[in-house]
């Protein structure tokens, strides 16, 4: 072996060590300077869930539009997005980097249940806000006393499951419900609360089939659910598996009344599942949403959606405006801007969490009309309203009024 090489290592390693620039920490609360507020979060820019990257992109576009109009209290919002490839170990590393090196004011809009779970303990011990975690797990709101520095945003999976259960109990007589669910917290949350919503009505869950995220398809699960004699099918699955469920059910010529969870309920996904209108199982599907659907003709002249399209076109060039994940990003960014405005000239981390625990915001232009974002007096779920909708001839049609799971 060549020994002189180690000398070269030593020199080059010293060079490599000296290169990365060290950030100087601010004297006041981290991340706040006289000109900017620095926030940061992870998003899967690469890897299996890269499609969700549009959430962060939509949010960034909105912040940039606010910055262009002068920002908040003379400060612009610098939103740093870091890739975690949907790998929680990577999330831990880059969030530490955001907190300890970049010194962000708050960790914001980090995507994924597991990713947020992985960093929650660390952020809470370090008293760093974990603002608007992008996951519907119930724990964000339920365990606010244990983790005061963490708050979620979207309606919880528990609330969603409950709403489907109640709807079935109200509209169906002695329905036999079959459930396809992802074998993790998210799927189990939906299933348990579906049962709670059914209550003591004549309708019952007669079969529930789990699938693993790593599995290839859900064909056998759908066949078993059909064989169980169910006449209602609940799909608690992410988009790929939800589409498969529709395709397999249609091949078996099974036409139950379908409930599809919100994470797979975007018009994009439904259009794919309908196989150009050939798939008859899709028709009549019931789902829920809180966002305005970019494909819905009702919002063609809506000021909120006009703002959405203009902002996306200007600050996220090349982004597909039909992707509803951008709408989610803007909705959450809108609420963040409201919070930061309330903090005034001297924002603190403590003040941010206090503000996040006492939100009363109505008229978010990216949410459905009538939906408000509220927290306070023990309620730690910001968004708890939605609209049931039925897939009719290639588009969503609302059913009844808004539902709400507010308990106060």
């Amino acid at each position, binding site marked *: 072996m060549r020994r002189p090489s180690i000398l070269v290592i030593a020199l080059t390693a010293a060079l490599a060590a000296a290169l990365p620039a060290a950030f100087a920490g601010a004297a006041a609360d981290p991340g706040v300077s006289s000109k900017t507020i620095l926030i940061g979060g992870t998003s899967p820019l690469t890897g299996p869930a890269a499609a969700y990257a549009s959430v962060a992109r939509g949010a960034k576009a909105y912040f940039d539009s606010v910055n262009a109009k002068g920002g908040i209290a003379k400060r612009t919002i610098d939103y740093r997005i870091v890739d975690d490839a949907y790998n929680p170990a990577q999330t831990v590393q880059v969030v530490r980097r955001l907190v300890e090196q970049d010194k962000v004011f708050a960790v914001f809009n980090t995507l994924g249940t597991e990713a947020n779970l992985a960093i929650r303990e660390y952020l809470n*011990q370090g008293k760093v806000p974990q603002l608007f975690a992008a996951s519907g797990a119930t724990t964000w709101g339920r365990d606010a006393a244990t983790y005061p520095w963490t708050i979620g945003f979207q309606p919880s999976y528990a609330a969603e499951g409950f709403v489907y259960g109640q709807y079935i109990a109200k509209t169906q007589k002695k329905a036999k419900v079959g459930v396809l669910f992802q074998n993790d917290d998210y799927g189990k949350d939906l299933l348990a609360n579906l049962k709670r919503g059914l209550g003591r009505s004549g309708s019952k869950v007669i079969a529930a089939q789990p699938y693993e995220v790593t599995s290839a398809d859900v064909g056998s699960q759908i066949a078993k659910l059909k064989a169980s004699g169910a006449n209602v099918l609940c799909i608690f699955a992410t988009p790929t598996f939800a589409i498969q469920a529709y395709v397999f059910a249609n091949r078996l010529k099974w036409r139950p009344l379908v409930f599809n969870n919100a994470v797979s309920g975007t018009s994009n996904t439904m259009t794919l599942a309908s196989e150009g209108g050939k798939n008859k199982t899709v028709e009549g599907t019931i789902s829920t949403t809180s966002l305005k659907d970019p494909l819905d003709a009702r919002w063609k002249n809506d000021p909120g959606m006009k703002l959405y399209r203009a902002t996306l076109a200007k600050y996220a060039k090349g982004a597909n405006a039909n992707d509803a994940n951008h709408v989610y990003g803007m909705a959450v960014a809108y609420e963040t801007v409201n919070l930061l405005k309330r903090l005034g000239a001297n924002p603190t981390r403590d003040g941010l969490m206090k503000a996040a625990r006492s939100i009363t915001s109505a008229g978010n232009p990216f949410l459905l009309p009538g939906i408000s974002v509220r927290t306070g007096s023990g309620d730690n779920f910001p968004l708890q309203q939605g609209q049931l909708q039925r897939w009719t001839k290639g588009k969503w049609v609302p059913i009844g009024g808004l539902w709400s799971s507010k308990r106060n």
Partner: protein
Amino acid sequence: MTPRTQRIIGFVAFAGFVVLVALLPAFINDFKAREYAYVGIYLIALLGLNILTGYTGQISLGHGAFMAIGGYTTAILMAGNEQFGGPISGGVKDVWTLPIAGLVAGAVGLLFGLPALRLSGLYLALATFAIAVAMPSTVKRFEEFTGGGQGIQLFGTPELTGSISNVEILGRSLTPNDWMYYLAWSIALVLFAVAWLVLRGRTGRAFRAVRDSEVAAVSSGISLARYKTLAFGISAAYAGVAGGLFAIASAFVNPDTFPVALSIYLLVGVVVGGLGGLSGLVFGAVFIQFLPLWAQGQDLGSLLPGRIVEETQKPGGPAIVYGVVLILLMFVLPNGVAGLFRRIGQLISGRRYPRPE
């Protein structure tokens, strides 16, 4: 240069490197120490993989799985479980789990080495790839120990040294990040020396003989079965220790912590560092740890033209930059960084051809 002077230079250089590693935290900000700790961790895994792939010629696309075995061994022991019984049911201090993580992964490696004897080249690569693919589902099967998809959270537990407060050791007070750095690098340097000792002697010659020609090796009296399984065992043990350290540094494990892509990154790291050499591996480790960040326009990446940095913020952007850098690197350094060192060595000594090993 005679081999003797070469050896002396080698020792001096290694000593210099140790001093550099020891002093580095004084020159970088506290947080960077944690990222360099990960470099040390990847170095351990690369040392192991290079013993198997670089020296013995057996390709492994499954080393992420051996890291997973080590990582879960550490995490499960730290978390404790009443079913274990005895003193360990309440949880084991992080440092003590590392030798066990190495032994468990090493044992699995030895076992895997047996069927691997019948496979060679691409078929072996596929078989090892299969373990990497199967690992996440296997982990979920044993939910009561592994925590299933949610994984095991270690941050803030008493078993983890230095979650948030400083670590007092040898009369000094280290920040949690510096502690992690020194822990990872002291183990990495010891294992570096061990790997060097193993490879320079009889065993190392046997490994190289197996790599260069199995037929020739057998006819010189080398037992293929013995040395191939041995290489698998040592290599997996290194990966296991690296996995254990990875779990401690992340204070969290779940099935996605050790994805299939990790196995591929490790192989990329070995190729970048240089197959069949130890000195370049540090760069392979730096590459694995920092390139994904550079590809997003951070640190060194911020020196890229603004137009490219903008692209890296888009979905899929970092992957493209990563790929382009990798291709360029393979054009410029076809034999990895170790190959570059060899060239420089040849220029200095004036030899046109390397001395036979």
